[in-house]
């Protein structure tokens, strides 16, 4: 019982911080005391927070390395925008149309997650990293060759050709124009939409983590053989975490794309995947609040430190190398566990809260 209380409290802290930040920012914006550059970053911050939290589900909670999270974002971005444009005449209310588009973006990204997960998550070993890395690149290239238009007959799709091959009827419109991506998007994303998506993401992820399924997922991460020996179906739970993570990234992709007038596949490249990975690593594996803070700070920071911007990638590289060493070296890991165990033992039950936060 005590443990449930603690969980609730640490969750409330997360929700509380997010809500308070939102309210404060809304008030500051209302009084006009916010710089235009920060205001322009509010939606991207929300997007990256959702990306980081969802990737943390795969990396921190499930313990599988994914190097193509931007690929799911891309799937969500393009399918979401196509849906949004296709639904223009059907759902007139912008916010509702956007919510439906995000759902479609999430569903398509989830489907991509299932297609990757079914063959890869059955295996034990670090195959997921390689396959997701390839997935990110492949999606980029597929979308670069993809032409989608709409006319009174409905959606028209063509691959590896040109926009002309769509043979759109009078009044038709090209939506995805190959490497040019989508242009002329009506900006529907708002800070409030982003805030809502963060809350939904937190609700889904935190509930999953603290459920029976979440325990099973973390047990798999801790020790796959032991987890299987107590009767945990490994593939099922790996899929559950991975597909949820992909779906949330898809919704974030739609939110992202609907914030700009144009979007191209090149935006969702390996660098973006790594950027999100850095948020997760710096925020702490399995630490949801850490991901939120890291994503926020690291999205704002480059803007504030424009003059140092050139060195940003250098710092990322160094941090990543150190973290790779730390997580792949058993001696080092054992040492960390020991130190952590000692601290927890000293603090008695206080350590419970940390169960998710390693």
């Amino acid at each position, binding site marked *: 019982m005590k443990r449930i209380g603690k969980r609730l409290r640490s969750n409330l802290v997360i929700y509380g911080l997010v809500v308070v930040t939102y309210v404060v920012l809304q008030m500051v914006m209302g009084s006009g005391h916010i710089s235009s550059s920060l205001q322009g970053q509010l939606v991207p911050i929300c997007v990256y927070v959702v990306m980081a939290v969802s990737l943390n589900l795969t990396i921190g909670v499930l313990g599988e390395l994914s190097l193509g999270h931007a690929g799911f974002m891309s799937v969500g971005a393009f399918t979401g925008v196509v849906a949004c444009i296709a639904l223009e005449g059907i759902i007139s209310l912008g916010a509702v149309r956007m919510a439906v588009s995000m759902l479609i973006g999430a569903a398509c990204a989830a489907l991509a997650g299932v297609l990757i997960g079914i063959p890869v998550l059955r295996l034990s070993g670090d195959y997921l990293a390689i396959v997701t890395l390839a997935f990110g690149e492949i999606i980029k290239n597929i979308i670069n060759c993809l032409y989608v238009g709409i006319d009174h007959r409905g959606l028209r799709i063509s691959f590896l050709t040109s926009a002309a091959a769509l043979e759109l009827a009078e009044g038709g419109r090209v939506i995805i124009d190959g490497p040019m991506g989508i242009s002329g998007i009506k900006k529907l994303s708002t800070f409030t939409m982003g805030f809502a998506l963060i809350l939904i993401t937190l609700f889904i992820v935190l509930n999953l983590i603290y459920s029976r399924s979440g*325990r*099973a997922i*973390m*047990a798999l991460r*801790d*020790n796959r*053989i*032991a*987890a*299987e*020996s*107590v*009767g*945990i*179906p490994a593939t099922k739970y790996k899929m559950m975490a991975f597909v949820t993570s992909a779906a949330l990234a898809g919704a974030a992709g739609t939110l992202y794309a609907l914030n700009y007038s144009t979007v191209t596949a090149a935006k969702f490249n390996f660098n973006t995947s790594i950027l999100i990975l850095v948020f997760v690593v710096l925020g702490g594996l399995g630490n949801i609040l850490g991901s939120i803070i890291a994503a926020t700070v690291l999205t704002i920071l480059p803007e504030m430190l424009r003059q140092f911007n050139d060195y940003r990638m250098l710092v990322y590289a160094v941090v990543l190398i150190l973290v790779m060493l730390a997580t792949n070296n058993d001696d080092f890991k*054992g040492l960390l*566990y*020991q130190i*952590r*165990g*000692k601290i*927890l*033992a000293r603090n*008695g*039950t206080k*350590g*419970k809260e940390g*169960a998710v936060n*390693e």
Partner: protein
Amino acid sequence: MLKIDNINVYYGAIHAIKGVSLEVTEGEIVTLIGANGAGKSTVLKTISGLLRSKTGEINFMGENISTLPSHKIVERGLAHVPEGRRVFLQMTVQENLEMGAYTQKNRDTDADMEQVFALFPRLLERRKQIAGTLSGGEQQMLAMGRAMMSRPRLLMLDEPSMGLAPLLVEQIFAIIQEMNKKGTSILLVEQNAQMALSIADRAYVLETGSIAVSGTGEELIESDKIRKAYLGG
């Protein structure tokens, strides 16, 4: 209750288990001994569904389990304590035990946990401790206790004495006997042949993937050949 008939297991091209058959009757302690690399762990992994046999049948409580996924096999009451103290290092002792009851969805597990603590008082003292900080012997106890939480009818133990001091080995074996008295049948894989044979009703000796000898525990202890090969004299 468990009857394995002519199983053959391969690791790629390596033919690790060659036509092994063995049997455990309700209430028995059966031990499987053999040299390093003989294939003992492979047999257990195959029974618990972590590996698949190319041929033959594994029958548990009258049902062919050779094609069931491992979690379904645990649900049937066949628990496996894998080699090398596989505990959840980042969870507390109590959380580890709770994970052991994973297949007992709607059952109240408090009574089961009391029973485990009765068998392993050391775990009770340490129920809030992070498993990664337990000693090797305590981790072994935790792995065994965790398996008991799934209410197994048959418990398979892979080298529970590995790396433990003699006194602790005796304790562990006493606990195995106690578990058995309380109604759990045991299939025990051991390097410590002397100890294993002394508590076993029956025993099988595995040599490079096939059963070389089988008999009652006493018979094997007396046998010259076994004494030379496995009991150091």
